[in-house]
């Protein structure tokens, strides 16, 4: 059926922002991940990385988000890490 709202006024969809934020916050809620738990993971990853490369503690960014599943049909929880490397230790 003809839907005029799709033709006009499709510019600022604040509901999409609401949906995206909700999805993200629910991944955390459902996984029941506490900030302490996340910090433990961060610290241990840092310890391992420090053996092989120079990374700065403060620049580490680890989060739990969602990603497309392998079959592309649903979204699954995923850990993303953004860790800038200063230099790699040569052995």
């Amino acid at each position: 059926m003809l839907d005029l709202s799709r033709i006009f006024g499709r510019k600022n969809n604040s509901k999409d922002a609401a949906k995206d934020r909700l999805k993200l916050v629910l991944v955390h809620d459902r996984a029941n991940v506490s900030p302490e738990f996340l910090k433990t993971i961060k610290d241990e990853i840092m310890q391992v990385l420090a053996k092989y490369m120079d990374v700065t503690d403060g620049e580490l960014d680890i989060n739990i988000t969602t990603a497309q599943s392998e079959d592309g049909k649903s979204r699954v929880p995923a850990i993303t890490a953004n860790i800038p490397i200063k230099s790699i230790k040569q052995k």
Partner: protein
Amino acid sequence: MSQVIVITSGKGGVGKTTTTANLGVGLAKLGKKVVLIDTDIGLRNLDVVLGLENRIVYDLVDVVTGVCKPKQAAIKDKRFDGLFLIPAAQTKDKDAVTVEQMQELCEKLKKEYDFIIIDCPAGIEQGFKNAIAGADKALIVTTPEVSAVRDADRIIGLLEANEIYDHYLIINRIRPDMVRRGDMMNVDDIMEILNINLIGIVPDDQDIIVSTNKGEPAVVNPKSMAGQGYRNITERLNGNNVPLMDLDSNTLLGKIKKIFSKKQ
């Protein structure tokens, strides 16, 4: 078979008490014998929403501690045949009632009433635990807002942890105009996020405030859109399959659509 239904939400102010009052009146109008229980001890409100605040003698704490019988505390609504209210205590603490006492009370009431509807307090503490203790079924009220949907998700998890899997969602205060311009999550958006079945939607309606002012639930007002939403939910609780209301029916576009669909 009688049903014990808890109306819950997690977040406050989304319309639990209004929903409880309207569903109670709606079911009584369908000829059912209904008792509503306000479990929000210390912050009772269901009595004023129903317009029964002047008739309270005993309360929920009196019933569970044996001061009076359930029948003595249940206020009979003179306007709607078959509707009763057990009010919350206003001057006592949340811990005045236990989970076991609520289970026992619900079992007793099942023998008397077709529907026992429990108005749950906001939050997930003792009051929530008491409210869900004797329930077979849960209706979770949410609004199309991030905070309310988030809390609804948490409540669904807690209900399942307490082995209540017969749960349904009510989406309250939908504003069709905002949904149309993409500034409010629609029914499909919310259903995509929450793992739960929908039992009904209630549009945002000024009649709710007017009817609450007077202590007359909107469900009896044939002109009220929210009242129609609540009537549909009572039909579904009663086992009748009624279609979801069309939120566009009140707009010019909706009316044009209607004319054309009639001709076909």
